[in-house]
């Protein structure tokens, strides 16, 4: 604990430490390595159990996924649904967070807690009534139904994630705007939005990834006409003759946005995680 600077350690200790770090990384990243390497394997090599065996890398699996299957459509569906969900959740969420952070009013505490606790409800619980209700309205298997169902778990999360950003804005800015004759709405748009913009971007990306990763609602509420990426990925592993090459290729493509997000937003991830964990 006292000697936290490894560069000042003795050489044998250094070697031991770095060896342990490398082993930890190798073990932990192994399944991801398997997915990515399998995606470049020719059909025969896929069924070679040795994960380190040499093979001639090929793009055949990607070609199959992108050009012979409907995967491009699945990507478009997922991007569209995730974008709409993020835009709606962030806009409504920031309005709500503004209200919760700047006003004192009756019922504030119970509304805030209700929103927070609703985040903890397992989605499988909502899937049953949502399926019945959306079937009655007649919007099963549409983009809209997935956007609505994603909002149900993303919006509460967004409100809590943006709240600290709004609380961090000094009251003086807002008072100045109000004295200058701005209405509350004007002060929200002109003063708050620019100041909390980083928070809005980060929570927008969080909601994009949550929507992107959703499998349950995509399975229950849609799945035949409107297929999203996770449904398509699992679709390659049917009951007969699992297509691991295609599955890993589409899986690798599905991982790209989430991994970019995870590596780029390291700083914000902890605050996001501590509001609601990961799905």
């Amino acid at each position, binding site marked *: *604990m*006292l000697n*936290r600077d*490894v*560069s000042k350690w003795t050489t044998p200790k250094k070697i031991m*430490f*770095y060896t342990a770090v490398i082993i*930890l990384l190798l073990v*932990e990243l192994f*399944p991801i390595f*398997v997915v990515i390497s399998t995606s470049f394997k020719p059909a025969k090599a896929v*069924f070679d*159990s*040795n994960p380190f065996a040499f093979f001639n890398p090929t793009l055949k699996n990607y070609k199959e996924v992108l050009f012979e299957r409907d995967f491009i459509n699945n990507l478009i569906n997922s991007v569209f649904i995730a974008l709409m969900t993020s835009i*709606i959740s962030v806009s409504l*969420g920031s309005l*709500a967070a503004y209200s*919760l952070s*700047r*006003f004192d*009013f009756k019922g504030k*505490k119970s*509304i805030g*807690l209700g*929103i927070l*606790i*609703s985040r*903890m*409800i*397992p989605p*499988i*619980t*909502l899937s*049953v*009534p*949502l*399926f*019945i*209700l959306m079937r009655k309205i007649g919007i099963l298997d549409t983009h809209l139904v997935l956007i*609505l169902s994603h*909002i149900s778990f993303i*919006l*509460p999360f967004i*409100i809590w994630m943006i709240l600290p950003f709004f609380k961090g804005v000094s009251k003086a800015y807002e008072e100045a705007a109000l004295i200058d004759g701005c209405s509350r709405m004007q002060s929200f748009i002109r003063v708050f939005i620019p100041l909390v913009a980083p928070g809005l971007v980060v929570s927008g990306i969080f909601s994009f990834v949550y929507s*992107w*990763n959703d*499998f349950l609602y995509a399975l229950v509420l849609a799945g035949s006409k409107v297929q999203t990426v*996770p449904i398509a990925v*699992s679709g390659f*592993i049917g009951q007969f003759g699992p297509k691991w090459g295609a599955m890993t290729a589409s*899986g690798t493509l599905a*991982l790209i946005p*989430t*991994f970019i997000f*995870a590596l780029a937003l390291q700083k914000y991830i*902890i605050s996001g*995680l*501590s509001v*609601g*964990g990961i799905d």
Partner: protein
Amino acid sequence: MSKLPKKTRETSLKKKSLWFKNKITPYGFLSPALLILAGVLLFPLIYSFFLSFHEWNMASGEAMKFSFLDNYIKLFKSESFWHSIKLQLIFVGASVSIELIIGLAVAIFLNKDFFADKLVRALLLLPAFILPVVSGLAFRFMYNPQYGAINWFIKKLGFAPIPFLSHPKLAFLAIVIQDIWRMWPFMFMILYASISTFPKAPYEAAKISGANRWQIFRYITLPLLKPSIVIAVILRVLNALKAFSEIYVMTNGGPGNATTILSLFIYKNAFDFYDMGFSAGVSYILVIIALIFSVFLVKKQFDF
């Protein structure tokens, strides 16, 4: 002279309207979010509660029938329900506690300045962001006795390949291993965030008074870390209660019902058997379990 009172009256009117405006504004800003949540969250939840008091098989084409507590009586008498509860509790307990131990050990181990330390931490966190479906399928691939990578290692060690997913107990172990692999980095990240900000003074004092490593861990690190541990564990428990897709694609609850945790039990009853009232009842049991943990979390972490 009649001017003055008029003016005062005007200001008081203005004040009154401003007061009214200030009363109504916060609700105005909240209402779009609350309206949509009422539609997609609150109403479905209430409807599901209503549903749980009805007997309704959607596939039969018959109308919903009020049955009061029948669904709840049925589920408390159902062996497969208790089996799912048991699996759910073991799943949550085993995975979260092992994730805590690994996460804590790695957080202490990596709490140093070293070459590429930020990159190492970022890479370790990647599994937590992998799509659950991809994770589940990747493990299903690696568990395969003929061509799976995990079984390649087992064969290299000189053992016979293990058919993980076709043996009830092993299949359950397999889904727990998958969860541990994916989620211990989450524990690690939350604990590391806390541990890296600890003050140095108590450690220096302990070293001067000759405390050994275990004593330092037991009497300094652990007490300082306790609040973060509590939060991380509750968050992970709530998260593990939501587990569905990775298990659905790995085993679909099988073999038999060896990995049918509550979410899969609900899914099967609702979307394989269309027994909507019964599955609404089961899902309320799950909600109650989740709410108990949420209340702890709310009390620990959040305040206005």
